[in-house]
């Protein structure tokens, strides 16, 4: 349970010296309780009090980092509309050490290439998991080296053999991989390896109960850089477990589950696998390990991840300016739309499809759609005219025709008056742009 300000106050030195920022220990305690201050700010707090209070001041789910920037956990809500989801699900592609060297090289090359450009954003998978499926320590070490030598992605080492882990880890320890798998049978040796290398440890139970037990034993050994796996593999059970792990951490502050959770897919067919992974991305997995590595399969998964981890309070925006689509010339049509990324890229896609190089003037509407912007007074003719001036549209083209969205047809008169341009009312929906361009610009 979270501590109250008073609980915290009892543990403070009561010097009321104000060195922590707030004037008194009590004020500082209140700030701590609401998460607005860090305990480190008090130079006089005793080691014992610190130990007691760490639990209360720690985030409900610990942030775990590994490899080249993979960041898991530190989530604070069950539903994205309550605030936002912070650290997008880390997607890791599994490579078996049963594969030949050539097969590993091919798979790694394919995984390295899993980066995508869409709607102005870069999507990418974060890592590669090398799985000691062979059960052979030497094969595992070779496979790990092979992958490490050929990929800059974050690494995950998966074996239940602590000795195999130790020797595979040694040459690549500076890559700071996530390692595992700690189970009830091997956890002491696993903790030693992970602790020695200063890398986070993946812990696997057989269900939530045994996972809690195992985490308790591991944290008793003094190791707390953990990623949790309930051990479940069927979609429904994993959904329940991931939901429970998140709830226990956030709503009950159950410390043993205060670590990010990982999920492993089980489906063989890549399409089934992606759909299964999609459930885990939506519902609370901080990391998903899967086998699929074809672009057409991974793109939909990375897209849903990006969508759900978008901050609901901050719509994604494009720069409000005159954008050129294709090899523009003085004859290019000029379209006006909003700087809401979704709207802008939908329009851009359709303008591209007209195959007529064009300009798009993105009006700063604070990232709202045309209708919302207009209703909020953010799509006013004055503003559009001003932007046309600012970006010197008149110098870029040799005509004076500007196309506005059909939804704001009402501003056409005023805009015409202000800008001196002929205002053409375009279609309401972007999907109408191709046929609109055909009849207006003769493509």
């Amino acid at each position, binding site marked *: 349970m979270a501590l109250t300000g008073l609980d915290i106050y009892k543990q403070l030195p009561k010097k009321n010296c104000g060195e922590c920022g707030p004037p008194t220990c009590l004020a500082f305690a209140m700030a701590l309780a609401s998460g607005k201050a860090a305990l480190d700010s008090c130079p006089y707090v005793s080691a014992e009090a610190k130990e007691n209070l760490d639990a209360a001041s720690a985030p409900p789910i610990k942030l775990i980092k590994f490899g080249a920037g993979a960041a898991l956990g530190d989530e604070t809500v069950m*539903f*994205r*509309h309550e605030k936002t989801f912070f650290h997008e699900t880390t997607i890791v592609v599994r490579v078996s050490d049963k594969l030949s060297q050539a097969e590993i090289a091919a798979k790694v090359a394919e995984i390295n290439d899993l980066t*995508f*450009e*869409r*709607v102005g954003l870069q999507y990418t998978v974060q890592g590669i998991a090398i799985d000691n499926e062979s059960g052979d320590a030497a094969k595992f070490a070779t496979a790990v080296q092979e992958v490490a030598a050929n990929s800059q992605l974050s690494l995950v080492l998966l074996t239940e053999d602590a000795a195999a882990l130790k020797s595979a880890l040694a040459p690549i320890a500076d890559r700071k991989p996530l390692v595992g798998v700690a189970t009830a049978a091997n956890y002491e040796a696993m903790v030693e390896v992970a602790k020695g290398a200063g890398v986070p440890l993946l812990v696997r139970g057989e269900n*939530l*109960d*045994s996972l*809690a*037990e195992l985490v*308790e034993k591991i944290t008793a050994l003094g190791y707390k850089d953990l990623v949790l796996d309930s051990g479940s593999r*069927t*979609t*429904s*059970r994993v*959904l*329940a477990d991931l*939901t*429970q792990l998140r*709830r*226990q951490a956030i*709503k*009950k502050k*159950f410390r043993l*589950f205060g670590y990010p959770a990982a999920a492993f897919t089980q489906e063989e067919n*890549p*399409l*089934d696998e*992606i*759909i*299964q992974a*999609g*459930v885990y991305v*939506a*519902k609370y997995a901080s990391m998903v390990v899967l086998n699929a590595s*074809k*672009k*057409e*399969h*991974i*793109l*939909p*998964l990375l*897209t*849903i991840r990006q*969508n*759900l981890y*978008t901050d*609901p309070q901050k719509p994604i925006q494009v720069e409000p300016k005159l954008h050129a689509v294709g090899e523009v010339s003085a004859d290019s049509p000029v379209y006006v739309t909003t700087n809401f990324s*979704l709207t802008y890229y*939908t329009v851009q*896609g359709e303008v591209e499809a007209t195959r007529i190089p064009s300009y798009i003037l993105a009006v700063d509407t604070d990232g709202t759609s045309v209708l919302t912007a207009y209703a909020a007074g953010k799509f006013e003719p004055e503003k559009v005219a001003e932007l046309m001036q600012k970006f010197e549209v008149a110098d870029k083209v040799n005509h004076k025709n500007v196309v506005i969205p059909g939804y704001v047809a009402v501003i056409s008169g005023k805009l015409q008056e202000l800008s001196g341009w002929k205002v053409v009312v375009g279609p309401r929906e972007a*999907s109408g742009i191709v046929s609109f361009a055909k009849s207006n610009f003769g493509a």
Partner: protein
Amino acid sequence: MAVAIVKEKWQSRVGQVVIGATPEQGGTRTHTITIGGDSTLPFLHFEGEVVNRPAVAMEVNDVEPDWHPLLKEPFMDVINDPAAWAKKCVEEFGADLIYLKLTGAHPEGANRTPEQCAQTVKDVLAAVGVPLVIVGCEDDDKDNEVMAAVAEAAAGENLLLGLAQQDNYKSIVAACMVHKHSIIARSPLDINICKQLNILINEMGLPLDKIVIDPMIGGLGFGIEYAYSIMERARLGSLVNDKMLAMPMVCTVGYEANRAKEANVDVDEFPGWGELKDRAILWEAMTATTLLQTGASLLLMRNPEAVRLVKKNIDELMVSNA
């Protein structure tokens, strides 16, 4: 160590809506489909009841639709025969319901008469035993005429008819009441308009268990996150006993997913996106399964392969995790 499972204590549940009517109930369907009824968040069997499995309705058009050739391919032998198309969806692709779009009614298109549309509905009813979801051509005036004719011709069938919208609902609601059908209430991603519309429809006399909410989703990559959060909020609302939000939700998955560029451009044009075939299947399936996680009860879909994936996902999620 026994972990005490955290269960929310919800006060209420999602409303149930029955679609279709058997001969005993005044229709001709071989069976009905019931959606909604859950007393917890989606598929959390450990916490409450997941009463009815979400249903998949496959889209059939009365005129050849303007779809990507790959998407049309499985239907090419039946594309000009809505009855045969519907039969194929049920028998070969496992559609739980048929979603018939009377696009041909559009005044600027084939401009079919209300009588012709009603005949199409009768043909499809005769061809399949599953319940039907029927919408018009998205021209308000024409749709009002068409739906009145359809409702009458299929009186007693308990069709799920659309669309009632804030500025055009009276005529179709009246048709539903007189001829015993249910209705799709569409609102543009807005909880307040959604509730308001349900109240208006209910005030006309149509019971709440005859209303299904269409929250106007966005597809994967094109605003699905807005639908995701609105639907999640609506589901939470129904669980805390907000009766005017407690109707099951229907999602236009096939339409929204397949208008995305990612579901249409070939690998030659966008080498960075991989092969189109699987990408398009997943675009539609992922749109559907993501919305299942918010509480969608009825999915309107197109691609048979995506339907297969989604039905498999539903099978897996209907396994108890209590």
